């Protein structure tokens, strides 16, 4: 059954706003309601077309009236901010978790609701040395922090499971997104790589599995237009190492000894360069590598960008100016090679002569 009235939360941000715009372009969908606490930027608002923007806080019971009065049948909850800041932890939790509870309470009492889609994150798998290298949808987290982004995501998924139990007639989809990158989206990773010199943890390196912003929108659009219930990992093919990503973006890594990481992070953010400490990346759904078999088979979606392609598209799209580009590196390689070889050959030409000439003399 195609949806007729869709409610999208978080429309002033990239994912929610662009999804609402795409849904509004589909004539089969009768109404698209976009909810957020702040109005989208004018450029995004223009693209959203016939989307009815409702300026509301989903933590407010008013949201129940909106859902009931419009006869919403599909709710797309873009719950998690893609750039959770370290400082605003408590406020972010309040917004994400309590907002979700209120929204689900409203949905539970609205008989018109047939489908709920939740945007979640691969951060729900936690980060522990006891973890398998690749998580599938059934892997339980070994070590989830007691608060913060990953915990919020896990709690939100928990509330949705409770909702699904109470409203067995509603089809529920949970999309666990890997770290988003792309020319337009603003995330913790894109901010981390903005300054020319980025702090890294000395003696540490993590695997990154990413997702192109267009693929994220593509998946959301697909699960809204067809009924695809269940939990699914959404990530691009392949893996980049963090150190490799820093090099590909033309950034210079600044290894910081683990005990000093927090201090350096604070100093840098105080100085206005790069707002995020690298050790947090792993807890923000960027250090997790996931299995995407279910996405391909059950959901019939194959991401168009690989992790490396998505990352390179981000680097190109943001016009990040590398301090040393691949062209310069290749030139330096040729020069050094020619130079050192020249010296070696000169030495080789000189070397055989002295013993022979010495003996003859």
């Amino acid at each position, binding site marked *: 059954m195609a949806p007729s009235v869709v409610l999208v939360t978080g429309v002033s941000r990239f994912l929610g706003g662009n999804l609402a715009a795409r849904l509004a372009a589909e004539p089969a969908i009768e109404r698209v309601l976009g909810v957020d606490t702040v109005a989208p930027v004018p450029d995004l608002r223009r693209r959203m077309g016939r989307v009815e923007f409702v300026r509301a806080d989903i933590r407010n019971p008013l949201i129940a009236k909106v859902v009931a009065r419009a006869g919403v049948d599909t709710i797309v909850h873009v719950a998690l901010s893609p750039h959770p800041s370290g400082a605003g932890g408590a406020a972010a939790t309040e917004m994400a978790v309590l907002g979700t509870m209120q929204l689900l309470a409203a949905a539970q009492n609205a008989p018109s609701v047939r489908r709920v889609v939740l945007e979640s994150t691969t951060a729900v798998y936690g980060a522990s040395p006891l973890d*398998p290298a690749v998580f599938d949808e059934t892997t339980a987290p070994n070590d989830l922090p007691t608060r913060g982004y990953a915990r919020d995501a896990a709690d939100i998924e928990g509330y949705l499971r409770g909702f699904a139990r109470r409203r067995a007639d509603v089809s529920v989809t949970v999309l666990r997104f890997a770290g988003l990158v792309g020319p337009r989206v603003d995330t913790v990773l894109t901010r981390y790589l903005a300054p020319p010199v980025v702090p890294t943890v000395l*003696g540490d390196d993590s695997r990154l599995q990413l997702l192109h912003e267009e693929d994220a929108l593509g998946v959301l659009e697909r699960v809204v237009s067809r009924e695809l219930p269940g939990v699914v990992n959404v990530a691009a093919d392949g893996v980049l190492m963090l150190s490799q990503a820093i090099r590909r973006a033309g950034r210079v890594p600044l290894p910081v000894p683990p005990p000093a990481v927090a201090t350096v992070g604070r100093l840098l953010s105080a100085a206005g360069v790069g707002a995020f400490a690298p050790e947090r990346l792993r807890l923000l759904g960027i250090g997790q590598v996931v299995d995407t078999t279910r996405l391909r088979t059950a959901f019939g979606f194959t991401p168009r960008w690989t992790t490396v392609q998505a990352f390179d598209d981000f680097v190109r799209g943001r016009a990040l100016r590398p301090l040393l580009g691949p062209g310069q590196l*290749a030139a330096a*390689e*040729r020069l050094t090679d020619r130079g050192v070889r020249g010296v*070696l050959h000169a030495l080789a030409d000189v070397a055989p002569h002295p013993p022979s000439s010495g003996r003859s003399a």
Partner: protein
Amino acid sequence: MTAGPTGGGHTVGGDDAGAPHFPDARVIPLRAATPQDPTPPGPISGQPPTTDDALAAALAFLRRRLSGDYTVDEFGFDPDLTESVLLPLLRPLYRTWFRVEPLGLQHVPDDGGALVVANHSGAIPLDALMTSVALHDDHPAHRHLRLLGADLLFRLPVVGPLSRKHGTTLACTADAERLLGAGELVGVWPEGYKGIGKPFADRYKLQRFGRGGFVSAALRTGTPIVPCSIVGAEETYPKIGDIPPLARLLNLPYVPVTPTFPLLGPLGAVPLPSKWLIEFGEPISTVEYGPDAADDPMLVFNLADQVRETIQLTLYRLLGRRRHTFRG
């Protein structure tokens, strides 16, 4: 950014095959190692490299690292780094220091998944590293052995990430089955700390083989088990004592006392130059049992015992063959 991941149509194999072979005035193709090619011309392929070859390879490697032009798999395995840096660092230890003699390499399949199961000893997992050098350098198919390591390894800074790049992953059924299912050669040391941290007096006495998880992984993926017996690692760091309070403080399973460590300080960390033999035994096929057999604990225990017995008997035979611990 000119060379995108989809760009660069020319294949590396073609370049190598088409390169003219003039031993004297050979023009080294600088583009030989393109981003798509994680394997630079290594010293194990063909003749010993000339200085020019080595220079070109080193510079190309440096450029790939500085521009991030290499590939890692989902486990974090970095073939470029492994072949260009890690294996060359281990090779002198393998060839000159321990003079490792690999035996029965024909029992390790050229392709497809297989599980190498070996005895563990020597306080530091040098035995696992040497086995991986043996299978890469001396096996005709130059296979990468993907090691399964304890979680302690992944708690350590530097060593943890480096192990992942070397192809090691956590010893858990999920990872083992994923690797075996992908047709990788996987190495496991099921005795774990009980084997590697046992006192010198117990040398070459196999300890309990974990809980047989490695057998279940092999059964579920239908891959053969290759028993592997390693002689020599026991004498590298003869553990004659332990410092439990220090181990507890450092959160380690043990802090070994050897005749030279900690007595001689850092010098005591140099392994003794024992003579090594690594023998790969006849593979034990698991495919005929079917994947459901992994749920039959009796079969799992029996197979684990069979592997353990094979390794133990081979160890005694190899010890008889090695006349002198250090001279061989």
